[in-house]
Structures are given as C-alpha cells and as structure tokens.
C-alpha cells in the first residue's frame, strides 16, 4: 500500500435529511431529501447535478429491511442520474463510510472527476425483534447468533471486559448518553433532539396528567438509574446506552481537488482515509479495543501526516455508549483505560478539548445504519465551514475526523479532513 491517494480529492457539497421514523417514506424518498440539501449546499450556483459521473451508495440491508434488492440504480433514477454508474457498498454499519472511501478512491484513480456518495437505511418498517435479527446478521450467524448474542449483546460483552480491566463504573456510560443527547438537542435533524433532562421532564409531565404517584427522579442520572425508565436491553447496556432504530439518509459530493473551486470557495480536503477488517468476537485477542479501528486510524493519520492531538473535532461510531469509550481510545485521543472519563470530565463535550459527536452522535441523532458513516461527514462539513448553527463549536475546526464501525469492528473506516 502506497499510503497516499493518486490525486487530491475534495468534498464540495453535503446534505442530510431529517432522521426519525417515517412510515410514509421509502429509502428512495429519504435519499432524495438528503440529495436536495446537498445540491443547495454547493455554493456556486452554476452546479448542474448532471455533472455527477457515478453514484456510490452505502446501505446495509435494504433486502431485509424493505425487501428491496439492487437499490443503487433506483436511487440514481430517483435523483435523475441514470445512465451513470450506480452501485451499493455494504459493510454493515460502516456501509456509508466505506461507500465514501470507494468514492474517494474512484476520483483519486482519475476515472471520475465528480461522484455522489450517499448512505441510506430505512429501518422502522420492521418490528423491533426483526430489526434485532437483521442487525445480528452483521455478526457471525453460524457461531455468534446461536450463542444468543444480539447486536447490543456484543457491545455489552465488550463493556463488561472493559469495566473488569479498567475499573470503569457502568454509570460512566450514562455520561456519554447525556452528552450526546445534549448535543442532539441542538441538531434539528436529530431523531431524539432532546436532552435527557427534557425527556425526563416530559415523562414527569405525562405522569402528572395521568394522576397517581409521580416518579421521584432527582436528576438525569437518577432517571437513568431507574430500570423502569431505562430498562436493560443487554446488560450492562440499557435503553439509553443504545442508538435508536432510524430512517434516514445523507450525501456528499466528492470531486477532484483541482476542480473543487468551481463548486465552492470553501471545499474540504480528504487528507487521510483508512480501512481495516477483523475477525468476529471469537477470533479476537482483546475485547477492550477494536483492532480494526486502530489499524484504520493509523492508516488515515499516516496518510494525512497528522497526530491525534491535532484533531479538533470528531464524529465517532457510538452505536452504543461503550463504543464511544473504545473509539476515543482507539483513535488515540485518550490512553487505554482513560476513555470512560472523557464524557464525565467534559473533555468530549462541545466546549471540551476534543468535541466528540457534536451532531448528537448515533445515540441522539439516530442510526440509519447505512447512512451513519456519511451523515458523520456531513456534520464535519458543517462544523469545519462554520455552518453548524446552534451547535457550532467555539474553536476553529481545521482538522476533523470521522470513525465508522461495521458490526462489532469486523470493519472500520476512518477519514480525516482539512480545509481546502
């Protein structure tokens, strides 16, 4: 591996649709919504979408979620791109991130100058148990599924291993959820754009309406400790440790760097990209770190020529609260065994030393699995251009990172962006 791109690649547009549960929308409708915001985001009004030469779509399982295979050409048709090449990339919850990487590599190769990268998933048409089954197929259906593991269960096992090794109290995970909900409350595209406090207050108001005894929650942590309000899903992970089931889509416009200023005066440069694989849980040597994340991050840092300490903001794959703890260590922001303190101490808050998941993360923004890796990059686009509105961080973000994990870390993809 040469460790560098064949030519410079830039992002010149980005869009994300509203995340949530939309029974009246199919994935093509969600994708159109993200595409429309992307087109509007391209500064130079002369942008003609017919300049797009190919479409790369991240999607985990339209077959199981919507009973629709062969999704990419339909999406190309719905945004008026046929007969251009359209293809789908699948890497479980990292589908979006690896679709972006394939788009970047396609432009870097010189074959295309302008490609559209999208991610989409429509998950809420299935009942929860069927979603649980579908997500579990991102693990090993021969050796993990029969052992009773669900997707939250995999990460729960990592949480117990991490807590046993490093002495993390499980309540530290609640601080990750609190932070990401506080961030999500500032994101109008988020599925759960509410602080934990607001959710608690809403429950109290409902209880008051109904009459009868009121829950005696003193504060947010007290609310999260209550198994009635926050029941276990896969102990030690509870409802508020888990990202929700979400419909949503996101898209970015990837072009050759030499052409970037035709589209915008403020492009983002792709400084680094890395991707790695790993065995399923039974093939690992450690449950307290994702080897694929460390490998993908090392590739991206090396390509970009930067260190973790230079990163000003990151969107990381917090499908579960413990996943964010592992991520901030695997990315080198915190030493091993210290990541669990970051949210509690404020370091990863919006005004902290390394803001993590200012979008609300998968936890609060929502996790339409194939879309998440692209939606992370849309957040970086907004923060790096000063367009993040009420959640814009106070410092200048000239270097930002996205970390997108598939399954339990059998896939990880990391991207690093600078300003053009």
């Amino acid at each position, binding site marked *: 591996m040469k460790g560098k791109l064949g030519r410079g690649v830039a992002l010149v547009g980005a869009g994300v649709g509203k995340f949530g549960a939309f029974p009246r929308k199919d994935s093509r409708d969600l994708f159109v919504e993200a595409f429309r915001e992307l087109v509007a985001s391209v500064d130079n009004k002369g942008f003609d979408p017919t300049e797009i030469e190919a479409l790369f779509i991240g999607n985990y399982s339209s077959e199981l979620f919507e009973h629709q295979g062969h999704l990419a050409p339909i999406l190309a048709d719905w945004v008026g791109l046929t007969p251009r090449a359209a293809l789908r990339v699948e890497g479980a919850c990292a589908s979006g991130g690896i679709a972006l990487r394939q788009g970047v590599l396609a432009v870097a190769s010189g074959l295309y100058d302008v490609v559209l990268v999208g991610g989409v998933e429509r998950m809420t048409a299935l009942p*929860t148990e069927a979603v*649980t089954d579908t997500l579990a197929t991102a693990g090993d259906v021969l050796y993990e599924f029969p*052992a009773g*593991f*669900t997707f939250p*269960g995999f990460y*729960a096992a990592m949480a117990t*291993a991490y807590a*046993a090794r490093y002495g993390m109290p499980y309540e530290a995970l609640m601080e990750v959820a609190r932070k990401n909900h506080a961030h999500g409350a500032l994101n109008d595209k988020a599925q759960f754009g509410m602080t934990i406090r607001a959710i608690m207050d809403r429950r109290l108001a409902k209880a008051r309406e109904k009459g009868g005894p009121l829950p005696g929650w003193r504060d947010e942590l007290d609310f999260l400790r209550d198994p009635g309000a926050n*029941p276990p899903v896969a102990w030690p992970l509870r409802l508020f440790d888990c990202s929700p089931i979400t419909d949503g889509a996101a898209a970015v416009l990837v072009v050759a760097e030499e052409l970037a200023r035709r589209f915008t005066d403020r492009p983002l440069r792709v400084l680094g990209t890395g991707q790695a694989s790993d065995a399923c849980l039974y093939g690992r040597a450690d449950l307290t770190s994702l080897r694929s994340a460390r490998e993908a991050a090392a590739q991206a840092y090396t390509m970009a020529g930067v260190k973790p300490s230079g990163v000003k903001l990151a969107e990381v794959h917090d499908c579960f609260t413990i996943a964010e703890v592992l991520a901030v260590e695997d990315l080198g922001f915190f030493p091993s065994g210290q990541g669990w303190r970051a949210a509690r101490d404020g370091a990863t808050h919006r005004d902290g030393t390394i803001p993590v998941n200012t979008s609300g993360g998968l936890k609060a923004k929502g996790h339409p699995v194939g879309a998440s890796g692209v939606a992370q990059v849309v957040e970086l686009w907004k923060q790096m251009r000063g367009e993040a509105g009420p959640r814009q961080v106070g410092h200048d973000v000239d270097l930002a990172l996205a970390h997108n994990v598939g399954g339990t870390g059998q896939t990880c993809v990391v991207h690093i962006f600078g300003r053009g």
Partner: protein
Amino acid sequence: MAERDFTRTSFEEHLAEGYLMGVRCRSCGALSAVPRPLCPACRVEDLEWVELSGRGVVEGFTVIHVPPTPLAAAGFGRDNPYASAVVRLAEGPWITAQLVGVDPKRPESIRVGLKVRAEVIHQGEAARLAFRPED
C-alpha cells in the same frame, strides 16, 4: 471423525455426540475452536480435529433482555433474560456460547474471569454449546 469436513455441520455433529472439537494446524500448531478449512495463522491447508477440554474463562458477557426471534419464541425476554459469554478456552482459542447455571436476574453475580466448563444442551436432534460455572 478425522474425515469430517471442517465446517459448522461437523462442529454440530461433534456436539451432538458430546464432544467440543476444534481444529489444529499441523504446520504451525495454531488452534481454532471454530472449524475452518484454512489455517487462519499460516494459511496452510493441513488441519486436524482436536478435542478441546471445554474448560475456560469468561472474557466478557451479557444478559439479554431483548432476544432475537428464535429465543423470544423459546420464551426468553424481559421477564426471562439469559446470559451469553465470550469464553477463552484453556487451550487458548475463544468461542461464544450461552451461560447456564448462572442467575441472569442478578448479573452482578456473573463476572469476567469466571471459570466455566462446556456443556452440551440437546434439543431434539440438535445440540448447542453452553458453559456452566465450575463448582
């Protein structure tokens, strides 16, 4: 036994006969509790079945309250959770299986480092692997 393919089907047949069988690479000695035709360490196609002791230690675990549909159909759920674990076998390789003989309603009583022993649970013709705490 040695002539069986290194597949999931063979793994389950061994379990049904009461054995936890893994594969060992004759070339580099690498062991895997999950059978496969190619050595994952040295990629040589020279494996043999070996019986594993079934003794192991819990590396990580969970208690599932929201089960997948087959286990929900078997009666598991919020009121009847179950435990699953990643187990490091005494010979080195890891494997995933349910934990039995533990109290899923008191997850604090289960811990990483717990010593466990393999047990085969027979369900009609099918057999599946589980682990039970040692004494």
